[in-house]
């Protein structure tokens, strides 16, 4: 039984991802869910490295863990009433949700396992250099659009909050 090293890593990472995912999905406490998200993102990054997509892994950690997770935690903290010692994260209809989840998982897995993928074991390693080239010549247009999108998002977020302050300028002067 020749269990190779990457397999062990894969299993550990998979367990990490799914465990955190489960916590995110099922925990009653929103904060614990938020923090378990961190574990999930880290596990995913690990998988990227395992799949020799090093830049992407790094990017994952950078964007998700650094960016998205922080924003979420902020949101959580802001929307929780200070007084609430234990933030409620009520759940409803867990059984049908789980059922739906199982069904979709079953479907995807069957597709994954039984679909005749054209495997090419010696896929080229995605170096940063090749990625950069790809980003700037074949995928230039989407790249530029993406930047536009980010700009729009930024403005949108600012607009939302500013209108907020103007409205509630009277009671909160933050």
């Amino acid at each position, binding site marked *: 039984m020749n269990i190779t090293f990457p397999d062990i890593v894969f299993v550990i990472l998979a367990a990490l991802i799914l465990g955190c995912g489960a916590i995110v999905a099922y925990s009653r406490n929103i904060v614990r869910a938020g923090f378990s998200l961190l574990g999930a993102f880290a596990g995913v990054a690990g998988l990227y490295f395992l799949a020799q997509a090093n830049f992407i892994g790094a990017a994952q950690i950078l964007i998700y863990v650094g960016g998205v997770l922080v924003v979420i935690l902020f949101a959580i903290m802001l929307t929780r009433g200070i007084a609430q010692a234990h933030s409620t994260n009520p759940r*409803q209809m867990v059984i049908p949700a789980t059922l739906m989840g199982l069904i979709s998982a079953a479907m995807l897995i069957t597709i994954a396992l039984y679909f005749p993928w054209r495997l090419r074991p010696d896929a080229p390693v995605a170096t940063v250099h090749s990625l950069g080239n790809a980003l700037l010549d074949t995928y230039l247009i989407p790249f530029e659009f993406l930047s536009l999108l980010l700009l729009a998002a930024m403005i949108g977020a600012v607009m939302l909050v500013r209108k907020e302050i103007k409205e509630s300028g009277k009671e909160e002067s933050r």
Partner: protein
Amino acid sequence: MTLTLGLPHFLVVAALLFSLGLVCILSRRNAIGLLLGIELMLNAANINLIAFARFVESDLSGHVFALFVMVLAAAEAAIAMAIVLAIFRSMKHIDVNLTVNLKE
């Protein structure tokens, strides 16, 4: 049990993660909980992209797309949180069931 790391493994993990995301969205009443689910599903998608890039594709489209997805996810999260905050400000709660005044 020869567990040579192949494409199906990644796909299975991604699938499971995806369904966990789904479960999270369906069973949460808290708007943020909802968003967490979205983030999980996006990551699952990314895993698939990378897996395919690794095992099937010859060019880098998989990787590039993964990048794009991440960027999008970030933008989306920001906007989402802004909205959530706006809702919180006006309605003092972010319970998905109650914010239904769009209903006809």
